[in-house]
Structure formats: structure tokens, C-alpha cells
């Protein structure tokens, strides 16, 4: 898939939070085949160097990082966090989150558009965490966003794709954009479904990190994403309301 002109081999992007240990995180990244992982920023206590230790772990894996603005509830907070992330991580990519609702962690689409406009003007390449709202998507594109990341369902909910119609409509509306389903993926079949809809990729975190066996689940997601993409390209059979015999009836013996 393409992200701002760069070709990425894997269509699965992985979060790095909530793993049982750094070793399992590294193994899960390897098993997933992911080439991009998401990272974040938090307060650092003097003398701890916790950030450096985490950064060393990620660098060992050789993957690229996509910093996020998780937890930001205002445009200013998200923009400042993005600016700080660019300096620390050395990338213009930013997974932009401006959270609007505390219960569902639904993006504040108005704030998201404004923050995208500011950051795009500053040379950032924004991957916008959004909903399937087509009007907001149009506005995001107008202000420079080229990668939309609609939610499947609320972050961490593991409910899969809540609005397949909306995601299908978004795919149809923006055939040229890179679309990635982000959030709400719980099991590999959810990821496969997103890929079968024609999405370029999926981003997931808790589904792997909080699985009983994160490494096995990472591999399961790798396979499901590949299967879903392959199926999308293979022109799937359209559903129909009534049965259609799959065994030819011509030449059948008359025994009744």
C-alpha cells in the first residue's frame, strides 16, 4: 500500500501498547509482518530514560514508526503533540486523533479538520483517525489529508465493523485515497472483512496485545489481512436472496 508516496509491503499496522512484555511485543511485531507500528508520547520523569529504553526496543525491530496524538481532546493539544512527536521520532507522519467523546472515543471531526489543516500547512503527512462520515472526509481531503483511517468501531471495543455500508460508501467515494480501518478490530475475521471491502490496510492494537497468545494472534491477523486482500482482488461472488444449485442438474437421473 502507499502512504504519502511511499510503498509499504505489509497491509497490517500494529500498535505497541499493553503487551505482556517487551519481548512479546518484539515477537508479535515479527509474527505480524507489520512494517509500521504506532507509538506515542507521555511525560518523562528525570533520570528514568523510559522513553529511550522503549525507543531502543522499537529500533531493534527495524520497523517504521507512526506517532499518534492519542488522548488529545483539542486542536491545540493535538497540534503541539504532533510537533513534539516529529522532533522525537524524526518523521512527518502523524496519526492524528482529536477525541470528541469520552465514552466512545469518537473523533471530534470539526477539530480533526482544523488540526489537519494546520499540520498539513506545516509539512506534516496526516493519517487522520476519523469516522465513516463522508462530509468530514471531503473536508479532510480539501485541507491536505491523503490517508483516511475510519474507525471500524470504538477503540478497544473489539466489535469489528459497525457500519459496513458507511465504510463501503467511503471506499466508493475515494477510490484514489489510501483508506485504512483503524480501531475496533477484535478478531482476524474483522480484518479480513475490511480488506474484502477494498481497504488498503488495517491498524489494530489491543486485539493482538491483549490476546492470550499475542504472537499467535499477530500471525493470525497477518494471514487474515493477506486473505482478505487476495479475496478483494479475486472479484468475490455477489450475495443473493435465494438458493442457486452449485451442482448441475442437467443429466440428473429421474428417480422420483
Amino acid at each position: 500500500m502507499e502512504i504519502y508516496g511511499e510503498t509499504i509491503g505489509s497491509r497490517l499496522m500494529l500498535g505497541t501498547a499493553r503487551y505482556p512484555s517487551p519481548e512479546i511485543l518484539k515477537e508479535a511485531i515479527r509474527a505480524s509482518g507489520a512494517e509500521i507500528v504506532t507509538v506515542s508520547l507521555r511525560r518523562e520523569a528525570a533520570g528514568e530514560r523510559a522513553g529511550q529504553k522503549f525507543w531502543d526496543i522499537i529500533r531493534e525491530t527495524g520497523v517504521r514508526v507512526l506517532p499518534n496524538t492519542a488522548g488529545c481532546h483539542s486542536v491545540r493539544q493535538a497540534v503541539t503533540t504532533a510537533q513534539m512527536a516529529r522532533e522525537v521520532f524524526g518523521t512527518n507522519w502523524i496519526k492524528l486523533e482529536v477525541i470528541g467523546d469520552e465514552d466512545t472515543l469518537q473523533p471530534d471531526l470539526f477539530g480533526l479538520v482544523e488540526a489537519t489543516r494546520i499540520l498539513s500547512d506545516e509539512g506534516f503527512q496526516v493519517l487522520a483517525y476519523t469516522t465513516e462520515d463522508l462530509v468530514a472526509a471531503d473536508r479532510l481531503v480539501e485541507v491536505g489529508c491523503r490517508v483516511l483511517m475510519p474507525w471500524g468501531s470504538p477503540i478497544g471495543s473489539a466489535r469489528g465493523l459497525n457500519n459496513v455500508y458507511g465504510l463501503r460508501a467511503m471506499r466508493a467515494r475515494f477510490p484514489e485515497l489510501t483508506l485504512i480501518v483503524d480501531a475496533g478490530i477484535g478478531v482476524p475475521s474483522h480484518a479480513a472483512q475490511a480488506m474484502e471491502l477494498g481497504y488498503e490496510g488495517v491498524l489494530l492494537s489491543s486485539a493482538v496485545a491483549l490476546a492470550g497468545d499475542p504472537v499467535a494472534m499477530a500471525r493470525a491477523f497477518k494471514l487474515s489481512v493477506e486473505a482478505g486482500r487476495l479475496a478483494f482482488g479475486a472479484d468475490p461472488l455477489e450475495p443473493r436472496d435465494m438458493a442457486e444449485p452449485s451442482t448441475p442438474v442437467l443429466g440428473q437421473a429421474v428417480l422420483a
Partner: protein
Amino acid sequence: MKIVVNGELVEVDAATLEAALIELGYGDALIATAVNRDFVPKTERSNLALNQGDVIEIIAPMQGG
């Protein structure tokens, strides 16, 4: 002077952000900084004069989803 660092009130002798980071033990740490909610690039830290009551955020990489 008294400033607020990551939500805690601290006393520093330093006059600039860069000097304060060294005084507080951040030295060569992999961090980014903001003062009074505005990002301060690494290259600007030595030019940024601190004032009494300034609010400084010091953040570093961590796991994310």
C-alpha cells in the same frame, strides 16, 4: 525561580530551558519540550528564557495504539 514541570512545582536556578533540563537531570534524554503549551524545538531551548511560573511539559516516546 519556581516553575511547573510535568505538573509538579520545582525550584530551579537555570535561566533558560536548556539549562533547566540539565539542572533537572534530563541532560541527553530523548525528549521533546513545550513551554506554556507551545512546542519549543530542541534548537530553541538555549534561547528560551524562563519566567517565574512557566509551565513546562517534557515528554518522551512510549507505547501507543
